[in-house]
């Protein structure tokens, strides 16, 4: 009965570590893998209560000293540092036990930002991962994570980053072509994918023409494209401005089928211009036709 735990030596049948820690008469493994089965063989006779206590899990077993106590797979599955107590009628033995995450990834928590961004932006897309095992324990041993950014045209950026304390991150450039890219993080045979929309950037330039239309002037842009050649999306606002004498008229026009057009009053000597965002187009001085 005395020091019942001391008789546990050599009787722990573990799938994981078989190292033992001694703390007085208590002998328990230093470490086991989460969810693995194990058995305790105690000596002596009579009843005792076995407690395995941690913030993430608690177990209690009424055991018969001198018999084997089997913990089935999945009994102790939360990684953590546990206090082990064996309480008999007249003593309490204490020890500590580490339960480590399993080494096989089961889930990748993947944070990818942003979901939509302009094309051709350096380090514009970021991804961070945390790697978990089947019991939702963070796997803190280093593991390689493959990040892939796949464009609809088939071009691919790949980076391999090793986790540290269970996390890893990357930054990638948005590609020069608009479309929905697949951003994937893969660890072992587990992966997680996010869609990153790449949209045209600001117009690279604005070229406007003017022609008479009755008593008005018809102003029209050429199709607007960004500096990578992608068509600027319909709905983008182009601002036309007409300045004459001391007056000024301004009209905001959304792009339709890539171009913007508007009729403005024909004032002799008026200065006509177009702009979108921070991009200025050409200027035209209107002379009486």
């Amino acid at each position, binding site marked *: 009965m005395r020091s019942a735990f001391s008789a546990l030596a050599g009787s722990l049948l573990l799938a994981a570590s078989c190292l033992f820690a001694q703390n007085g008469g208590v002998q328990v493994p230093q470490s086991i893998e989460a969810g693995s089965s194990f058995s305790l063989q105690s000596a002596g006779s009579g009843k005792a209560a076995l407690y395995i206590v941690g913030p*993430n899990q608690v177990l209690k077993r009424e055991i018969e000293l001198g018999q084997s106590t089997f913990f089935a797979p999945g009994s102790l599955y939360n990684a953590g540092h546990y206090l082990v107590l064996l309480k008999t009628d007249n003593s309490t033995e204490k020890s500590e036990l580490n339960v480590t995450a399993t080494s096989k990834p089961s889930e990748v928590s993947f944070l990818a930002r942003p979901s939509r961004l302009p094309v051709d932006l350096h380090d514009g897309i970021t991804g961070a991962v945390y790697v978990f095992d089947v019991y*939702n324990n963070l796997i803190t041993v280093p593991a390689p994570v493959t990040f892939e950014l796949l464009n609809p045209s088939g071009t691919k950026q790949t980076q391999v980053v090793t986790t540290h304390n269970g996390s890893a991150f990357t930054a990638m450039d948005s590609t020069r072509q608009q479309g929905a890219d697949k951003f994937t993080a893969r660890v072992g045979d587990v992966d997680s994918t996010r869609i990153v929309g790449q949209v045209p950037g600001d117009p690279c330039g604005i070229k406007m023409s003017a022609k008479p239309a009755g008593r008005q002037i018809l102003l029209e842009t050429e199709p607007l494209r960004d500096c990578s050649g992608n068509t600027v999306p319909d709905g983008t606002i182009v601002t036309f401005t007409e300045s004459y004498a001391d007056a000024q008229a301004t009209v905001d026009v959304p792009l339709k089928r890539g171009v913007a057009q508007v009729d403005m009053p024909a004032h002799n000597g008026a200065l006509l211009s177009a702009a979108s965002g921070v991009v200025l187009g050409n200027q035209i001085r209107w002379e009486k036709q």
Partner: protein
Amino acid sequence: MLKSLLALVILMNTLMNATAGQAAAQANVRIESSVSLKGSRVLEPQTASVVIHDYLQSWHSLSAALEQNRANLLDTDFVGTARDKMGDTVREQATLGLTTHYHDRSHDIQIVFYSPEGLSIELTDTVEYEVQVEDHGAVIGSQQMHARYVVVLTPTEARWKVRVFQTQS
């Protein structure tokens, strides 16, 4: 970069000397240099101090919840996996007639990762704490423990909450 991080550590030490007394009772709190901080996002000193403050508060919630077997006490400071696991522990304890008392004595904290999009912060904490176990009101035993925790926090409406809370061997 190195200079600013060292400045951050000094500021955090100053701030935490003030907050430690409130947040972790008599627990000693030491903030380690974050010169090896991973991530492309700059960690502002104010962010760091708030994160550590909220993390230290979580030890109070943990302690109260496991002492009173009230899972709802975890809601202030825990979310996701950490909340689920500790909530399960509270239920297991209640079923078994157990209560546990956690008293943190000292923390040695290092922020190791700030994710680029700002939605998670990871820290390590070498903690010394005492655990006492009671079974149906009778003290079974207590032990001084020493463990290195890995903690991931995420921002919520008003505070950073602990999403991952486990030890590292």
